[in-house]
């Protein structure tokens, strides 16, 4: 925070430059202008690891004989370069979330989760952590790409917490990971970004990409199993709102449901901003589904829940939704009574983040104090965990030498890939070979009374796997 004339943060020391020097620089530049074509060109896309190539600061090993001493047991082999943070500077990490536009409700809690985590975590080896300007993925591929360019242009950046939206990650993750940085997403769930759990990398998987959010395939399977086995309903329908996330989840549900033996009577799309759901619901009603899964968001989800019982043919249909609808405003409505909700296990209870020692209640209290409201979406905890994972990884892969902090990029990745049984507020995290770090535990809760939503949130009737 900076006010008129009040400077709270140490300023970087600056060298004054004589005019002569500048002129000299201009001339030298003119002389060299042909040669500097490639100085900041990115590493070739094929080679994800470009050793000793672009990273400017020299690794200390070759120059100094007693290298192992200062380095200690910091992780990494230096293959992705080493970042040096000088005294008085901060360790650069970034937040990349959808913080404007219609999905800001999803991205803002993510960003704030990172901010809280940094505040709680404190310094790393005496160096502060600098989040810079929070970046916006605009929930779009273009936005993700442009923001990623901003990130990779700063070679000091170690890692990114984000993106909010899978579409943005598709464009951002190749850029970020090829620059040797890591990317940990708190809320991407598309299988394409990691794997299908059968050893096949997704179409958009990149080494260096991790996430603390679950994989859609798990949630789809969880809901399908629950509906088919637990509720004993053999015909179900799904509804999505044209968002890649909701469409993907509806599709995953449908696939898993057919696999376990159920019949999908229809998948219908609505549009964001629709209010009158009767036509879409009527279309679904003609298949007489026993259950309707609509993994969408408010306010469209509110309308679905309110209007479904009025549609002839859906009167007795069991309504089910996903984490997107698990918001207090919706649970307080009478329409939502009796519904089931699937989602990542949000019974954070006494889980303690091992990086900061905070539990969910403490974090939420800090959240409300700082931002004046409670989180508007469920992934703040995943974001908090993602940030502490990153900070822990930096701590593990860095060492102080001559007052400067050195961070080994490869070490950061090594740490993350080896994460196992990490205690986070969202549960126990373990990263698999394709960057899926979440506990992958999906729960289904039963919402019995709009009068007591806290009870409903803990009323877990099914857990998967």
């Amino acid at each position, binding site marked *: 925070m900076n006010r008129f004339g009040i400077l709270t943060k140490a300023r970087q020391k600056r060298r004054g430059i004589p005019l002569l020097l500048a002129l000299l620089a201009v001339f030298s530049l003119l002389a060299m202008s042909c040669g500097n074509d490639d100085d900041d060109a990115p590493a070739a896309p094929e080679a994800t690891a470009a050793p000793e190539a672009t990273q400017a600061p020299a690794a200390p090993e070759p120059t100094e004989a007693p290298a192992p001493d200062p380095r200690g047991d910091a992780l990494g082999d230096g293959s992705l370069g080493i970042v040096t943070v000088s005294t008085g500077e901060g360790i650069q990490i970034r937040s990349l979330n959808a913080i404007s536009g219609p999905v800001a*409700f999803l991205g803002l809690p993510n960003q704030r989760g990172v901010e809280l985590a940094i505040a709680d975590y404190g310094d790393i080896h005496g160096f502060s952590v600098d989040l810079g300007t929070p970046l916006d993925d605009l929930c779009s591929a273009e936005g993700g790409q442009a923001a990623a360019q901003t990130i990779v242009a700063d070679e000091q950046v170690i890692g990114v917490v984000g993106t909010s939206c899978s579409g943005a990650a598709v464009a951002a993750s190749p850029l970020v990971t090829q620059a040797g940085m890591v990317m940990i997403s708190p809320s991407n769930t598309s299988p394409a970004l990691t794997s299908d759990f059968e050893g096949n990398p997704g179409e958009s998987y990149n080494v260096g990409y991790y996430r603390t959010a679950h994989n859609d395939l798990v949630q789809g399977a969880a809901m399908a199993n629950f509906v088919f086995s637990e509720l004993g309903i053999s015909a179900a329908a799904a509804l999505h709102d044209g968002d890649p996330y909701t469409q993907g989840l509806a599709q995953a549900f449908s696939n898993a449901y057919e696999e376990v033996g159920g019949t999908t009577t229809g998948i219908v799309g*609505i*549009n964001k*901003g629709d209010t009158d759901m009767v036509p879409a619901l009527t279309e679904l009603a*003609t298949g007489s589904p026993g259950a309707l899964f609509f993994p969408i968001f408010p306010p469209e989800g509110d309308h679905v829940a309110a209007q479904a019982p009025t*549609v002839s*043919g859906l009167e007795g249909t069991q309504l089910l939704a996903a984490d997107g609808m698990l918001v207090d405003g919706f649970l307080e*409505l009478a329409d939502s009574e009796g519904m089931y909700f699937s989602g990542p296990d949000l019974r954070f209870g006494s889980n303690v983040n091992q990086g900061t020692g905070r539990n969910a209640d403490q974090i939420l209290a800090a959240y409300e104090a700082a931002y004046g409201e409670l989180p508007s979406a469920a992934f703040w905890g995943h974001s908090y965990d993602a940030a502490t994972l990153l900070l822990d990884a930096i701590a593990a892969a860095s060492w102080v030498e001559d007052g400067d902090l050195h961070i080994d990029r490869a070490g950061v990745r090594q740490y993350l890939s080896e994460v196992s049984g990490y205690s986070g507020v969202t549960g126990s995290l373990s990263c698999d070979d394709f960057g899926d770090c979440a506990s992958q535990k999906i729960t289904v809760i039963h919402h019995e009374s709009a009068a007591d939503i806290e009870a409903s949130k803990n009323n877990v009737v099914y857990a998967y796997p």
Partner: protein
Amino acid sequence: MQLTAKQRTRVDWFLTILRVAALVLIGAGLVAFVAQVVDSNNPFARWANPDAINLTGRQFRDLVVAGLAQGAMYGLIALGYSMVYGVLGFINFAHGEVFMIGAVTGAITSSKLAEAGAWEDNFVLCLLLVVVLSMVVCTITAVIMERVAYRPLRGKPRLIPLITSIGVSFFLQNFILVLLGPGTKTYPRMPEWLTEKRTFLEIQGTRLLVLAAAAVAMVGLWYLVERTKTGKAMRAVAEDAEIASLMGIDVNRVIVKTFAVGGAMAGVAGILWGLLFNSVLHTAGFLPGIKAFSAAVVGGIGNLGGSMAGGLTIGVAESLGPLVILEPLGVSGPSQLRDAVAFSVLIIVLLVRPSGIFGERLPSEERT
């Protein structure tokens, strides 16, 4: 009367083909739908879409009612478009935002009332209060908008106020966004007797209320325009502002009144929206606004009855069209295309009848 032989250009041929194709598609869809209803195994129905779904009578009726309720809302907003268009001759794109502001005002005041406990105790009174407040806010918004953004532009080329109104629209939408945040603003719970599903003819109470309110507003507006002095002045200004001013009519006043009345209508529509759908977002005004304008055009702009009829047409078309026309033709997931259906209605109506269904005249080209 002898028809003049029109020489057809290639464009005319193309348009004719388009018209015919659109009508044939609609016709084929309808026939396929009927065939489906009569006997889902008849050869035509099977050929058109073997998996076509079969609507029950009740479902069909529900679709019509939902469409009518939605359409009545479009109609109410369309009245504002139509009036301003009639008097000033330009589309006030931002009218949809005025409607949204009405709905937001309603959401805030009603939830405050609910917090104070008044909403449940004395629902009707609270509702009246909310309606009045929303009308006031909308009227003020509309009048300020006219004063700040449109009045200085009178007499400029006609694209200029149109573009300005697009700017106003986005400004207002984001004005609400930055002040009130991106979250949904919800209305408190309605009393049972209103939301009950089978009040009359097994139609939801709120939908009936919307239809009734639309009818009342329509009659009120008709009275205002046709029977009062203000209405006469409005019609005079619509006919020719310059001459009206020579006849001693204060054109500015009339225009302000037009905006005010349009705003008030949008305020009513906003509250009805809240009652029907329980929640509102800052983006809630844009698409309904565009559709309402389409409704005004479909009905014949400048014609109040036409606006309401156009609204109902668009509402019913987007409700029924996907399942009655597209689905029997083999389009999968047709409900997703409802906005496309709404715009197609606009395009087809303009192709077949450029002045709209009830439009008698096109406002003169020369007016700027």
